[in-house]
């Protein structure tokens, strides 16, 4: 179970196969070391659940989300046109992604530009796999009964009204879910959205991720779960600056599921 090959779309097509699902990895998932382990967990979950999937590999390019939210509509639409040409070229119908920003922009903003796909966030996809019995978790895993809180990514929750899928995944882990004082539609941002990830914050009296970390600490949860690589970075930094790394883990949903299903390499 330790090694398997993640096929690219080009390879699949060359073999005359066309996968059901395209796994859109995203920039963070491709390049950021921490996010890469989330990507690997998602790939392993898809493989384990026998989902026919492929990635674009080097043919994938930024969706244009940070450019658009920073005001550069030209750059966004150029990126979108390029990605849509690739996706339509491969006849992609169904996309699953580990990044809520990619999810939102492909789901809501690509259709008008010619890219109409059924797009799912990995929490939604995993929730379905579990409910369909395609993914079974070990009887005994480290998250069973653990006190866990979920940080709603803005572009999954408020942006697209999805609050239940990630929670149903946590429920499947048989963990003790505790909500933060601001959760679901009232969830506080981690501070990375709107291209903030790529710049210094404006002058203020606190960092947004530190504020959000206070909400986490208040729940006395042992794990704060994210569904977004940027939230993950922000919460990891927040927990670090609060000197709570010993007591609070920052995990993506996919990592926890992969651990609980015993499919991660040692």
């Amino acid at each position, binding site marked *: 179970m330790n090694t398997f090959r993640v096929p690219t779309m080009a390879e699949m097509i060359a073999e005359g196969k066309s996968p059901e699902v395209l796994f859109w990895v995203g920039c963070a998932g491709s*390049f950021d070391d921490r996010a890469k382990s989330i990507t690997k967990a998602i790939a392993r979950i898809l493989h384990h659940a026998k989902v026919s999937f492929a990635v674009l590999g080097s043919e994938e390019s930024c969706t244009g989300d940070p450019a658009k939210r920073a005001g550069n509509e030209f750059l966004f*639409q150029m990126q979108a046109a390029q990605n849509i040409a690739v996706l339509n070229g491969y006849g992609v119908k169904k996309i699953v992604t580990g990044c809520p920003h990619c999810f939102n922009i492909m789901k809501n903003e690509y259709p008008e530009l010619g890219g109409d796909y059924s797009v799912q966030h990995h929490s939604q996809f995993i929730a379905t796999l579990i409910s369909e019995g395609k993914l079974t978790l070990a009887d005994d895993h480290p998250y069973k009964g653990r006190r866990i809180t979920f940080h709603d990514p*803005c572009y999954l929750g*408020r942006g697209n009204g999805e609050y239940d899928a990630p929670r149903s995944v946590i429920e499947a882990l048989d963990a003790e879910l505790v909500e933060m004082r601001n959760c679901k539609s009232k969830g506080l*941002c981690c501070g990375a959205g709107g291209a903030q990830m790529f710049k210094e914050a404006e002058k203020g009296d606190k960092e947004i991720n530190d504020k959000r970390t206070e909400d986490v600490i208040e729940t006395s949860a042992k794990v704060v779960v994210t569904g977004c690589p940027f939230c993950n970075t922000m919460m990891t930094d927040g927990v670090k600056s609060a000197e709570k790394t010993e007591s609070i883990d920052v995990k993506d949903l996919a990592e926890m599921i992969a651990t609980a299903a015993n499919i991660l390499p040692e």
Partner: protein
Amino acid sequence: MIAQLIFALIFGAGIFFFSKRIAFISRNINMGRDIDLTDRKIERWKTMARVAVGQSKMVTRPVAGILHILVYVGFVIINLEMLEIVIDGLLGTHRIFSDLGSIYGVLIGAFEFLALGVLVACGVFLIRRNLIRLKRFKSKEMDGWPSLDANIILITEILLMFAFLSMNAADSIAISREFEHYVGTANLSGAFPISQYLVPLYSRLSDAGVIFAERGFWWFHIVGVLSFLVYVPYSKHFHILLAFPNTYYSNLEESGRLNNMASVKKEVDLMMDPTTDPYATAPPNTDNGEPEPPPCFGVKDGADLTWKQIMESYSCTECGRCTSVCPANLTGKALSPRKVMMDCRDRMDVIGANRDANGGEYKDDGKNLVGDYVSEEEIWACTSCQACVDACPINISPMGIILDMRRSLIMEDSKSPDSITTMFNNIENNGAPWAFPAASRGDWIKDS
């Protein structure tokens, strides 16, 4: 007869000045860019019914929400009584509807309970603003006029309700003393459930004094209401009218969706089209043969807003729920979504006055919404988290305006923080916001 004339004059003046201001605001709204919101009518009516009529987003904060409903219901229903007051004023009658039968007494009684509700709610609101000093009402943009405006509204409503109840109290004394004109209103039994407690205030007055009090409160009330009518569209209180169209024209898309700019799409399509002639001149405008002026991207000044965004700015009642959930504001940054809305409105007031003073054509005053009203520091602090959009009780989107302002900063003025420029360059060069080679995008696969 003279009283009727004076009444007609005051009433006409009230309507005139109110209409004048409404016309000014609608001219300002019409200066905005076009946006087509004529679709999905049923959904729009439903949204308005739920959010504006049904106050669904107010009650997410129960204390303010329920008190607000007291004032709202009181305002709407007590205004039924205004119809009678106006007819009485014009015809010189007294309680013309009292012939309706015992239902009249029940109605007036109900109005009194509602008036009490309004009194209590406004009292609590004053306490929240001025004694408890809730943080939401005390940010910098609320200094001066906005705070005074709020207090004027609350005190006016208290005075009007007090006058309404006092008028009824004096009336009931007049009835008990069997004055001519007043005794006929026999259907008023049980009509004064609240004002009966005000009777002792006026019961020692002479007969003439009672009539003077009753007439005095009647006039105070109606003149107050008409003055308030004129005041409202100059004030944040204008939300009582604009909340309805503003929610009708709500954004019905997912709040995560940010519009694709059509003007940019045209250019990108041309760029991607291999048959495009790169040396072609712009196609002439059909009206006069002149080439169309290049579009201005995003929002730089007031008139770059869409008419809906300008409507939002006039609908905002400065409650500050947006600012109180804004992650940037919560962590001490300069950005306050409420201030952005107030700035848009204030700017449109200036632009509108300038336009009217210059024969209908706005003359450049050397100022812009971006820069002179909203600073770049504020604009760059937004995380686009949509908390402000979610929090607004009447579905205003400050975030939409903030992001449109970024569009003009970037696409008109090429102004961005250095690190944002680097991010753009990285995306252009290697398809990722970081400087990693595109070819290494799939490298994670090797060690998965």
